[in-house]
């Protein structure tokens, strides 16, 4: 466990080593807030509404994409650029463990970013959060981030076989913006496309977090969170196998150090 924490801390430090504390705040606080503000203003204009609770909640959940998708998703890609990928592959340590180490602190930062993003977003856009149970809201965020981490692990495995991770990760981040229901009801989408909303993380956690703002059905609320956890677990399991397959494919096709 000590080794796990040490390695996780080291990975976290590497990501931010080149930037100052002010730049860290800019990257992890101000920029996500501007992104949230952009989607909320867009929603206020396009939906002609002043009640932006749904968009503040939805887009605060999407703030985790910056860390989860881009930091965790590019885990192997970054190792390739720093020249460590070969050492990692030939070492006996589990590759899944390496990605989990890399995701440990980003997952914690994601929970903090989403929670404070929601609080500050609520203050800016006059969303009354005093009536909701903030502990329950925090729990929903943790469940959502658990699911997102599993999904990002799955994405990271592609870094072993392709050099187009920037394309893949940005595309996935955009897919989340569209299909998670953060910006418009997913019922607006054609039935076939709604399937995407069902298989990606965050859709259910955003829906359950929105339920906290009104009288809600406890059974449905719990069921949504269980489903979200299940989605996360499925992605963790898939990641385990996909990383193994990708590792074999990378060795076979000699794509480990492909730039």
């Amino acid at each position, binding site marked *: 466990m000590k080794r796990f924490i040490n390695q996780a801390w080291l990975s976290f430090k590497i990501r931010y080593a080149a930037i100052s504390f002010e730049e860290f705040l*800019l990257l992890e606080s101000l*920029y996500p807030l501007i992104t949230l503000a952009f989607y909320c*203003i867009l929603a206020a204009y*396009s939906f002609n509404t002043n009640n932006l609770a749904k968009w503040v909640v939805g887009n605060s959940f999407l703030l985790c994409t910056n860390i989860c998708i881009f930091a965790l998703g590019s885990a192997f890609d970054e190792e390739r650029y720093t020249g460590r990928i070969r050492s990692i592959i030939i070492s006996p340590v589990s590759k899944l463990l390496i990605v989990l180490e890399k995701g440990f602190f980003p997952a914690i930062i994601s929970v903090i970013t989403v929670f404070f993003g929601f609080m500050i977003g609520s203050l800016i856009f006059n969303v009354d959060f005093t009536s909701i149970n903030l502990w329950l809201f925090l729990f929903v965020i943790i469940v959502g981030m658990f699911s997102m981490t599993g999904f990002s692990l799955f994405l990271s495995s592609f870094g072993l076989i392709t050099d187009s991770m920037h394309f893949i990760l940005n595309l996935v981040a*955009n897919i989340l913006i569209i299909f998670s229901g953060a910006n418009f009801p997913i019922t607006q989408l054609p039935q076939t496309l709604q399937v995407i909303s069902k298989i990606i993380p965050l859709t259910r956690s955003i829906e359950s977090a929105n339920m906290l703002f009104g009288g809600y059905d406890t059974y449905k609320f719990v069921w949504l969170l269980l489903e979200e956890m299940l989605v996360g677990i499925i992605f963790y399991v898939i990641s385990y196998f996909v990383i193994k397959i990708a590792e074999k494919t990378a060795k076979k096709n000699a794509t480990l150090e492909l730039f």
Partner: protein
Amino acid sequence: MKNLKVLWTTMTLQMKNSFVRPMFRFCLLANPLVNTILLYEMFINSGQINFINYVILGAGLMGIWSCICFSSAGDINRERWYGTLSIIYTAPADFRLVIIGKILGNTILSLITFAVSFAAARLFFKGNFYAPQAYQFLISFISMILSFAVIAIFLAYLLTLSRKTTLYMNLIEYPVILVCGFVFPVDILPNWVQKISFSLPPTWAVKLLRMSVAGEVEASIFLDTFYKLVFITGIYVIIVILLYKIINKQVRKLGTLEMQ
């Protein structure tokens, strides 16, 4: 003639180099596609007439700006990483001409974002783009290309001063889309934000484009906005000239041209 050849060669080479980069391909092809879907779904119940025009323009503009952020803005720094910056800096061809060629190449290639956005709207939503004042639209579109190219050169020079180009490239995308009103009018933003908006050329270029597709717009209002765009863009051209002088002096004095 020799200068034109440098410009043309740099432009074509830049287009090829940019297109092989996965991130640029994302900005060029995937970004306008997903943004068209997002904006369409958000505006479909807005009750606005001709909202599809704004969806196509908005998605195209967001795409072109992403191309600038993740390519043009970091082009000088990219040459530094390739190890070719000192070569093109000291080559007989004017360095400024090479940079203009690179930016123009990128900007022209980025226009594909509008085609993708238009095709996506047509294919998925049977939406049609309609510009009632064709000549105004043409003027606006060309002005937009030029003003975006100027701001791209400004950013490329500015980011050369920092070694954290990648960080800043990531930080300028959404703030500019928000402040310059790519998908909603800047009038709905708070007054203090509007002051920032009006100091940026893309704001006026976008305003002009929105006017040209809105329908009947008085020629005097259109011209007034056009002159403001020319004025603000002119200021940025002066800043770019001054920036080059500062950078030129600094890299020769401090020897930081290849410092990463």
